[in-house]
C-alpha cells in the first residue's frame, strides 16, 4: 500500500473516531457523575436514530437538523427517566450492579417499544449526500456524510466542554465527579445535578443515535456493537472527561482501521511480514486494550489523571 492510501485510511479513521466519541461521551458523563453503567445507552441510540428518521420521513427535516433537535428532546426524556427510575438507585461512589440491572431492564423495555412502534424492518435515511464523497486527487475520497457527522460531533463536544468548564452546572458536575461528599457540603444539589447530568447523557445518546442513523441502517435491535465500543472508549479515556473520550475514540478507530492493513512482522527462518486476515480484525483492539490496561492500569488518561479508588 502506498503512503497516500494510508493517509486516506487515516482520514477515514479520524472521521470514524468522531462518531465513536459522540456516542461514548453521553455514557461518560453519566458514569462520571453517577457511576451508572448505562446499558440502556444502546436503547437511547436506537431511539435517536428513529427520532431523526421520523422527522426526515414525515416532515423532510434534514437528519443533521434532526440530530440537533434530538438534543433538547432527549434531554427532557433523560430527566424524566431519571426522575421516574434512576434516582431511586442506592448512591455509591463505585459502579453498582443494581444500576446495571436497572438499565438492562430499561433497555429491554425500550427495545420492545421500538418493535411495537416501528416493527422490525431495517430502516435507513437516504439523503443526496449519503453516497457522495469529496475527492482529493485519485486516492483520497472523504465521504460527505461522515464529514458532516464528524463536524457535528466535534461542535457538540466543544459545546459540552464549555458547559463543563464555564457554567455553574458544569462546575457542580465536575465537583460531583471529583468528590460527591465535599460537593454536597459546598452546596451542590446532588439530585438536581444528577437529573440534569442524566438528561445531558441521554441528550448526547439521542444525538449520537441520530448521527449513526445517517451512517448505518437500524432496527429496534440497533446499538449492540456500539455499546461495547462505548465501554472500551470511556475506559481508555479515563472515564470522566470529554477530552479523554476523544482520545479513546481516536485510539480505537485507528486500531480498528489499521489492524488489517499494516504488515505485521513475524519470525520463521528469517523475518517476514503478513497481513492480518479481516476476520481477526476485532481481536486487535480488544487484545490491545487489555495490554494497554496492564501497562497503564488507569487507562490512557491515567497517565495524567489522579488516582482511582478501588471499586
Amino acid at each position, binding site marked *: 500500500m502506498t503512503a497516500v492510501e494510508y493517509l486516506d485510511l487515516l482520514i477515514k479513521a479520524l472521521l470514524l473516531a468522531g462518531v465513536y466519541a459522540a456516542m461514548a461521551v453521553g455514557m461518560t458523563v453519566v458514569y462520571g457523575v453517577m457511576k451508572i453503567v448505562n446499558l440502556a445507552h444502546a436503547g437511547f441510540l436506537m431511539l435517536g436514530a428513529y427520532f431523526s428518521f421520523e422527522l426526515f420521513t414525515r416532515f423532510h427535516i434534514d437528519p443533521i437538523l434532526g440530530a440537533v433537535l434530538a438534543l433538547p428532546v432527549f434531554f427532557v426524556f433523560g430527566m424524566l427517566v431519571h426522575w421516574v427510575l434512576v434516582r431511586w438507585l442506592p448512591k455509591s461512589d463505585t459502579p453498582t450492579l443494581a444500576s446495571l440491572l436497572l438499565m438492562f431492564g430499561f433497555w429491554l423495555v425500550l427495545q420492545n417499544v421500538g418493535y411495537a412502534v416501528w416493527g422490525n424492518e431495517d430502516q435507513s435515511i437516504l439523503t443526496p449526500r449519503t453516497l457522495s464523497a469529496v*475527492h482529493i486527487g485519485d486516492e483520497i475520497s472523504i465521504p460527505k456524510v*461522515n464529514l458532516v457527522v464528524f463536524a457535528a460531533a466535534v461542535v457538540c463536544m466543544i459545546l459540552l466542554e464549555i458547559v463543563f468548564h464555564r457554567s455553574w452546572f458544569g462546575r457542580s458536575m465536575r465537583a460531583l465527579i471529583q468528590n460527591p461528599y465535599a460537593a454536597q457540603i459546598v452546596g451542590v444539589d446532588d439530585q438536581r445535578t444528577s437529573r440534569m447530568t442524566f438528561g445531558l447523557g441521554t441528550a448526547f445518546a439521542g444525538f449520537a443515535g441520530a448521527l449513526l442513523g445517517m451512517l448505518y441502517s437500524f*432496527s429496534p435491535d440497533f446499538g449492540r456493537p456500539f455499546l461495547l465500543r462505548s465501554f472500551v472508549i470511556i475506559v481508555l479515556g479515563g472515564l470522566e472527561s470529554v477530552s479523554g473520550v476523544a482520545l479513546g475514540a481516536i485510539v480505537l478507530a485507528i486500531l480498528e482501521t489499521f489492524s*488489517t492493513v499494516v504488515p505485521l512482522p513475524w519470525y520463521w527462518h528469517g523475518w517476514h511480514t503478513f497481513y492480518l486476515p479481516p476476520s481477526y480484525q476485532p481481536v486487535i483492539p480488544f487484545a490491545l486494550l487489555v495490554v494497554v490496561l496492564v501497562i497503564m492500569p488507569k487507562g490512557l488518561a491515567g497517565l495524567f489523571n489522579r488516582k482511582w479508588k478501588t471499586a
Partner: protein
Amino acid sequence: MRTHRNFACTCRCRTILLVLLLLGGIGLSSAPAAAATADDTITIGVVLPTTGSESKPGQYQKEGIELAIKQINDAGGIMIKSKGKKYKINEIFYDDSTDSKKSASLVERAMSSDNAVAVIGGYSTALGTAESVMADRYKTPWITTGAGATAIFGKGYQYAFGSLSPVALIGTTSAEFLGSLIDQGKLKKGLKIAMVVENTDHGTDYVNGFNEWANKHKGYFEVVMNEKFELGATDFSSILQRVKNSHADVFLSDAHLPDYITMQRQYLQNGLHHQMVSYGARGPEANARQALGAGTDYIFAGIWWSNKLPYAQAKKFAADYKAFTGHDVDSWYAAPAYDGMRILAKAIETAGSLDKTAIRDALKKVELTDSVLPGQKLKFSANGQADYPFVITQNKPDNKVDIVFPKDAATGDPVAPSPNK
C-alpha cells in the same frame, strides 16, 4: 422537610407509573393462545425470531407460514384418513429473540410439552443448526425454512428437513451465471474475483460453492482475494481498501442485510466500481433500496425465490401475501416458509394419521407439485434438504428487479458489465 414531602408525593407517582407500565404491557398483549388440544386440531409448533437481529426475516417467515395455515384451515383443514375427518391446524408460535440457546429450548418445549406433531422454524443457519438437534431427539419432524447450511443435513438426521436449497448453490449458481456471461462474450475469460464473505457457515458455504464450479471450469476465474469479516462490523474501509488493491474485476460478498447496506454505502463512497457486484442472497430487498437508492443498481443476487417468477401460483402467492399482511413480499424469506408449511400439510394428509414417524416417512416421499419456488416442485432429497434451483436477480434502475438467470425463468437480460456512472 421540603425534601421529605417531595419524596412522599413522588413516591406515589412512581409507584403508579410503574404499575401502569406493567399493566400496560400485559394488557396490550393479547390473551395468550392457550394450547387448545381440542379433538379436531393438529398442533404445529413454529419457532422463529421476531425480535433481535434476525427479526425481519423471522417475521416474513412467520407470515408465510401463517398464510399457508390460514388457507389450509379456510379449506376445512387437513383430511386424516385414519380418523375419517378433517383436522384444522393449531399454530403455537414462540419468539426466540435471535438467541440460539432459546431457539433450541423453545423447539424442545414445542415438541415435548405442546405435543406438536411437527415443528417449523430456525431462521439463519446458527439458530437452525441449534434447533436441528431436537428433531431426532424427540422423534418429531422438524422443517427449517431459514437455514440452508449443508452442515445441518450431513449428520444423518432422520427427522430434520429443510425447505431451502443448500447455500453452497448460491455460490455455484453465481459462478455459473458469471460463466454464462463470459460465454456470451459480455465478460472476459480469466475474470479476477475478490470475495469478502461473512464469517459464518453461510459465508463458508458460499465460497465453497463458488470454488466448486470454478475448479470444474478452469480458466474462467482467478480468485485474487478471499477474506472473511465479522458480522455487524461498523467500518469496512480497510477491507475495501484491500479489495481495491486486489485489482479485481468482480466483487462478490455474502452478507446479512445490515452489513450489506453498510458495506455497499462505503463501497460507493470510496468510489469503487467493479464489472459485477453481488452480496450473495441479498440484493433486491426494499430496505436496501431505501438505504442506497440508485446505489443498488446492477447488483445481482442468488436467491431462493423472487416475486418476479413467472409462475401463476407464485403470482397468486404474492397477491395473497399482500392481502394477508398488508405489505409486499419484496424478499425471498416468506416463500420457502409458505411452501414448507404446505408440504408439511401434504405429508400429514399422505400419512393419513397424526403419528410423527408416519408423517416423517411421508415427508421423505411427498412432492409439492404446485410449489411457488423455482422449478415449481418441492421435494426433500435423501438427506432431508430441498434441492431446487436458484434464480439470479439483478437490480435495474428505477427500482426494477429482473430475473436474469436461468434462461427459462428470466424476465430480462443481464446488464454486464455494469455501467460506471
